[in-house]
């Protein structure tokens, strides 16, 4: 995304905001829908058809499920308990068929556009191993913007209606806005219809306080993206692209910087999206909660890309772990293994699918599948060792030294995960890990990776991000703190924020515009 594009985007977002305020209550959400679709058509052209097909399909599927529910309500009148139970069973079967149809229809777009080349390629490699040359060509498939994000939202909507969490929406345009809301199509977050979906379609009155709060978050998001993340990219791309030329210390340093790059970039863009929503008075879906202070990888994933983790938990993990085969398996284990393994094994099976899906969601390659399973293995080892420790000590270990050790350990594990994530292939990731121990200098300036100006700004950025996170971790709300200051201090803060972006932004000569990392998913 070039910075010219960013200025266009800011201009576009401002126009939409002003028009939203002018339009009568009843039509406010239609302004958002119209401009969201304009934005989508301009950035996707004919690929927009996939978003439209998904929208129409889930709208109809949910209404169909609703109709079946109504049928149950009418037919159950006057029936005895047993007959009611039997009718419910039949109705559930019917509903399940409709749901499966909806899931297959929508997943098929994602599978074809995102995974088909990978599936065919893997098939070709397998055939090659068996001595058959299949000559499989890479298909020129283009992915529509945000397909991985809006497909998950679409599935959550029909599954929620199926589960009876809420009724199907009868207004088609509201569903269209829920899936197509323009800022969320870049990097999410993955929202739910009963939360963000309902909120964006309700009319919101203009509020000066909301506008200021939103703008503050947007400025902070822009600082994280343009000043911090894009500058960190200089070191990261130089080292990851030519890792053979660098010492172990330089590689380790670049990996740590990458962790901060992806954190500041992803959370920065989410802050911009959340800021836009807050300007309207809409409550954004949370996606980050200071993940770098996590004590274990489970906690890290509860605080990093929260909306993806929550989606996988609610729609994959619970669906599998509470399914009949898994609960039956759990019962069969009763008395045959220890109490711990009785609970652990069914969960471990379910979590395998969660982490496999997590890896695959990030990209169509073995590297991403390995990335997901890397966390799965760590979590499983963590569960078992935790149980062994509790069994031995009869209590949870908890003091400040253990906490510090756990945070550092988790940070190291997360960094290795980020290395796998960023490296071009899995083989390169392993080679880079192998090169950790290669001696040599850490002098990046001397090695001509970066100049002292950019390097200093990267150090300052990392310190600022950590301080802001620490302040928030202590429960201090920075924006409420700013609110209490006199108007001239508040405006001075805004002006300084904007000047920081203009003066220290990593744009112009010598800097490469960096596309949103999660945008490609």
């Amino acid at each position, binding site marked *: 995304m070039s910075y010219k594009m960013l200025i266009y985007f800011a201009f576009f977002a401002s126009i939409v905001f002003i028009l939203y305020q002018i339009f009568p209550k009843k039509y406010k959400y239609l302004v958002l829908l119209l401009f969201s679709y304009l934005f989508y058509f301009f950035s996707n052209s004919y690929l927009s058809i996939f978003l439209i097909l998904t929208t129409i399909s889930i709208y109809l599927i949910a209404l169909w499920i609703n109709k079946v529910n109504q049928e149950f309500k009418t037919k159950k009148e006057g029936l005895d308990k047993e007959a009611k139970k039997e009718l419910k069973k039949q109705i559930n079967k019917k509903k399940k068929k409709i749901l499966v149809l909806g899931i297959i229809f929508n997943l098929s777009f994602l599978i074809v556009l995102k995974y088909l080349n990978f599936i065919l390629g893997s098939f070709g490699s397998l055939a090659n191993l068996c001595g058959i040359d299949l000559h499989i060509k890479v298909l020129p498939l283009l992915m529509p913007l945000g397909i991985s994000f809006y497909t998950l939202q679409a599935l959550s909507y029909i599954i929620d209606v199926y589960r009876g969490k809420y009724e199907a929406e009868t207004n088609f345009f509201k569903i269209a806005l829920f899936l197509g809301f323009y800022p969320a199509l870049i990097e999410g977050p993955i929202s739910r219809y009963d939360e963000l979906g309902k909120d964006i379609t309700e009319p919101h009155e203009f509020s000066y306080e909301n506008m200021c709060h939103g703008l503050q978050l947007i400025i902070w998001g822009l600082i994280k993206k343009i000043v911090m993340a894009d500058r960190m990219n200089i070191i990261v791309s130089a080292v990851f692209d030519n890792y053979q030329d660098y010492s172990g210390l330089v590689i380790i340093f670049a990996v740590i910087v990458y962790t901060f790059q992806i954190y500041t970039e992803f959370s920065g863009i989410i802050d911009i999206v959340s800021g836009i929503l807050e300007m309207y008075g809409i409550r954004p879906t949370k996606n980050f909660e200071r993940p770098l202070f996590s004590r274990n990888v*489970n906690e890290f994933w*509860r605080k990093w890309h929260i909306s993806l983790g929550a989606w996988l938990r*609610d729609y994959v993990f619970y669906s599998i772990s*509470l399914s009949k085969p898994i609960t039956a398996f759990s019962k069969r284990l009763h008395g045959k293994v220890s109490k711990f393994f009785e*609970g652990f094994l069914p*969960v471990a099976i*379910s979590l395998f699918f969660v982490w496999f899906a997590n890896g695959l969601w990030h990209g169509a390659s073995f590297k991403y599948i390995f990335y997901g399973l890397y966390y799965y293995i760590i979590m499983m080892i963590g569960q078992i060792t935790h149980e062994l420790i*509790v069994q031995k000590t009869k209590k949870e270990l908890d003091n400040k030294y253990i906490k510090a050790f756990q945070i550092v350990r988790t940070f190291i594990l997360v960094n290795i995960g980020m290395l796998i994530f960023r490296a071009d292939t899995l083989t390169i990731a392993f080679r880079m890990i192998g090169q950790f121990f290669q001696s040599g200098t850490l002098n990046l300036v001397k090695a001509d990776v970066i100049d002292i100006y950019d390097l200093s700004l990267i150090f300052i950025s990392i310190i600022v991000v950590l301080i802001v996170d620490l302040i928030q971790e202590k429960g201090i709300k920075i924006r409420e703190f700013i609110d209490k200051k006199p108007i001239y201090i508040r405006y001075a803060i805004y002006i300084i924020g904007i000047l920081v972006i203009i003066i220290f932004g990593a744009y112009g000569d010598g800097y490469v515009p960096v596309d949103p990392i999660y945008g490609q998913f």
Partner: protein
Amino acid sequence: MEELLEILNELKPTVDWENEEDLVKRGLLTSMEIVRLVVEINDNFDVELTPIDVVPENFYSVKTILALIEKLENE
């Protein structure tokens, strides 16, 4: 109540179940433990908890878990 406390104590003996009011937010009940708890509840009570019942609000405290069981028993 007693039966539920017995299940919970067996699941995680280190937690003061009766006095904790925010089991989910404080990380005392992870999603993995919730699954183990649901299987136990389904086995020991005349209910069948499904994914739709597994929302944080139902697992804030012993009281909310018990309220969920009672609600399902009366359905």
